[in-house]
């Protein structure tokens, strides 16, 4: 049995962090647009988390390529706009910029410092926040979708070459991002209405997990009926060499545990007794599941078999599991 390892765990970290950051930004941007300054510490946390997550994810991509310094000079290296990777590189650059700016506009000491030194209209921060939030939602959704499109573009990897993949990664991005923001709202938000915010967010996570589980089911059942190469890939996850991490970590830790945690939290069953530990378990479990999903989908991306198994064996990047 073979797995794909030309793109390994570092690329999986990027796919995960890119999605996590994008999801967290969308969550706090919506919260800020809907509630203004009521939950400013949650919004500030989410904004910084998204900028840092996408930044670190991009760093992982840079470390993974052979010539990181050359790749860093975006305007000289990423010039072929017919390639999805070029579009993605500029999207990531835009997201880091927008998420970072949005975070700065929610960090009062920084605003005061800037306002004191330059004649910057600090008092118009509300308008800037709204503009950055609205534009940022589009850019960050673009980043979330792009993580799937990057893998989906090459035609000869049938397990990746489908629109189900961006759909799955986007659902997971929103799920993990909202999860991270909920984690902060539970542990760090001091607003009187924090309780209401948590309830709304936990409701959102339940819906997102159900969407993600449905997309995952539809994606795999579609692949199990597609070309023989797609079937080989899908079977790696459902019944092959990767079945244990898939069922235990992706489905168990990534979907089932957070779902149970959110339902029990929302039901108020455990709220009084374990208000911190249980949501934390749900969050960590959801994040581990999110990364593992990316790693396993990467590993299962086998090439289309062309002439014979022998021809496939010479394709580099395929290692043999004894």
């Amino acid at each position, binding site marked *: 049995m073979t797995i794909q390892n*030309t793109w390994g765990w570092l690329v999986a970290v990027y796919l995960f962090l890119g999605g996590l950051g994008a999801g967290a930004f969308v969550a706090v941007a919506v919260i800020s647009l809907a509630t203004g300054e009521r939950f400013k510490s949650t919004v500030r946390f989410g904004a910084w988390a998204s900028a840092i997550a996408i930044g670190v994810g991009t760093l992982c991509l840079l470390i993974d390529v*052979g010539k990181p310094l050359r790749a860093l000079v975006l305007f000289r*290296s990423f010039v*072929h706009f*017919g390639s999805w990777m070029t579009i993605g590189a500029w999207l990531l650059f835009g997201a880091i910029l927008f998420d970072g700016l949005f975070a700065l506009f929610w960090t009062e000491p920084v605003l005061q410092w800037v306002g004191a030194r330059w004649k910057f209209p600090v008092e118009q921060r509300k308008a800037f926040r709204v503009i950055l939030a609205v534009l940022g939602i589009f850019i960050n959704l673009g980043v979330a979708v792009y993580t799937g499109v990057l893998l989906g573009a*090459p*035609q000869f990897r049938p397990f990746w070459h489908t629109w189900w993949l961006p759909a799955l990664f986007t659902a997971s991005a929103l799920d993990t991002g909202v999860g991270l923001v909920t984690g902060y709202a539970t542990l760090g938000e001091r607003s009187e209405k924090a309780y209401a915010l948590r309830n709304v967010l936990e409701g959102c996570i339940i819906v997102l997990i159900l969407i993600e589980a449905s997309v995952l089911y539809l994606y795999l059942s579609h692949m199990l009926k597609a070309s023989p190469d797609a079937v080989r890939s899908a079977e790696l996850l459902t019944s092959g060499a990767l079945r244990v991490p898939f069922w235990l970590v992706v489905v168990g830790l990534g979907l089932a545990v957070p779902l149970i945690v959110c339902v029990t939290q929302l039901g108020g069953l455990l709220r009084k007794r374990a208000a911190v530990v249980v949501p934390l378990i749900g969050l960590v479990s959801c994040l581990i599941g999110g990364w593992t999903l990316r790693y396993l989908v990467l590993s299962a991306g086998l090439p289309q078999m062309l002439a014979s198994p*022998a021809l496939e064996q010479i394709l580099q990047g395929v290692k043999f599991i004894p």
Partner: protein
Amino acid sequence: MKRQYGFYVELERCIKCWSCEVACKAWKGIDAGTVSLRRVIEITSGEFPAVKRTFLSMSCMHCEKPACEAVCPTGAISKRPEDGVVVVDQTKCIGCRYCFFACPFGVPQYDKTMQKCDMCLDRLAEGKEPACVATCPTRALHFGTMEELSKIAQEKVAKRLAGSTQPSVLVSK
């Protein structure tokens, strides 16, 4: 029609001696244990007692519609209009490996940047054949324009390698 260089591989002549692989590595000065721009593979078919072994020498197919070129983010991969050779500009490649995933034959190989056959452009400029073709002891490998190769192949039962990217390679068996 513009010129398109290609390879013609006569499978029944190949004896899997790896001379082409070695000649390629020697001419290109490739370190041992790294990449192979040309590779000889063995395909077994049939069942005992009617088992058949076929040997195929493979390099970049210099496709008419290169999938690698389409996905390259930096524009490092290009198809030369004058002779159809697909080349990697080593000063532009960032080594992201996206072309490896795009190529239906998994041809581009990673060694900090992406490496693949350039049909020995330096030898072509001197009027010589690529190192692999010049070395092949059984004359299983041919090099030329696709028109020239088609003429040679007409006498045999040769076929152009299939694929949506239109590889510039003929194979006879």
